[in-house]
């Protein structure tokens, strides 16, 4: 039984990093495809498209920081806490990254037609980033209570 609990603890430590990496990979791929498509249709502004398509890469950074914060000796007493915080923050980061990628793809597609809305079109992606930051910050705050 103890082995299972310890395994869950280690899973919780690494989950934010793994799920954050998956989120960034999928999100950047979605937005990146949109930027490639837009480049074939427009005459300029390619740098902006590439820049926007890299937005979801922040999720893996948050995941790495959470992983280092949770990283400690895993004991039967703290394994449950590590598992809960790690898995749930990882899932939150994963959803934020994937949907941020979709929001960035929509922004790129819209900006291609109307370059003047570039800033405004990024608002949904920025708001999703905010939710990712919430998951990140409060994972750090809560993890301070784990022995």
């Amino acid at each position, binding site marked *: 039984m103890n082995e299972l609990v310890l395994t869950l603890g280690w899973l919780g430590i690494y989950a934010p990093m793994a799920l954050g990496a998956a989120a960034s990979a999928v999100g950047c791929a*979605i937005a990146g*495809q*949109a*930027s*490639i*498509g*837009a480049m*074939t*249709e427009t005459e300029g502004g390619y740098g902006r498209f590439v820049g926007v398509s890299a937005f979801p890469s922040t999720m893996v950074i948050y995941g790495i920081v959470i992983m280092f914060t949770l990283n400690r000796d895993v004991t039967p007493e703290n394994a449950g806490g590590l598992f809960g915080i790690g898995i749930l923050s990882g899932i939150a980061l994963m959803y934020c990254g994937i949907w941020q990628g*979709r929001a960035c*793809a*929509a922004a*790129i*597609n819209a900006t*291609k*037609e109307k370059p003047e809305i570039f800033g405004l079109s990024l608002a949904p992606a920025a708001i999703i980033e905010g939710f990712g930051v919430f998951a990140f910050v409060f994972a750090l705050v809560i993890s301070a209570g784990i022995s």
Partner: protein
Amino acid sequence: MSDRDAYIALISSLPGSERLFIAKQPPLSRLRLERRLTALTPEDARVLKVLEHALNWSDYDMDVTDSQAIQRCKDALRDIPQPTLREVFTERMDLRTAVAALRLRHQGGSPPSGSFGLGRWSRHITANWSDPTFKLDGPMPWMKEARQLLDAKDPLGLERLLLSVSHKQLKRHAARHYFDFEAVAIYVLIWNIFDRWAQSNAQDAAKRFEHLAQQAMAGAAEIDFDGATA
């Protein structure tokens, strides 16, 4: 339901469908569109071909009978698995059935027995044959205007009204699809409307006629009416 992110790059590489109607020059030729559509999977390309084949009038023979056309549409409907595209197809069939009924009655045709055409209103139309709009004002508010244009013998105006109605229907469906196959198919159908719209542009047609007439007149100046050209 298609993969929602299946065609992100393809959709992003197409000019916005609104731009098709406001640009002075066509922003996307059929050749370029076809080249972009090579990104479709074989199955999606097949479904799109079935959809276009059943909806494009140019794909029908001039002497096609009603039953052959209806059968082709029924076959097409069986081959389209996406609910949204089936809905798009059914709406277009409803529109065509209603307009065909208007035209038939305008020509003095007798009310058909049983059902007429294809779609949800085929029996409703025959049951309400004597009503000016077949009592379809609710689901098809454009029927009254279509009947007026038909009575006024304005086929170009009627064509434009129908294209406008079809465009609105497609835009309504497009609002729920961004980067999936349905979005691609709806874009292609809107492009087809744009193409028909451009062909029915009276001003352009007049300019083209004038250009052709001038060409013909220029050629006529070189003709020796005794039979030999200069």
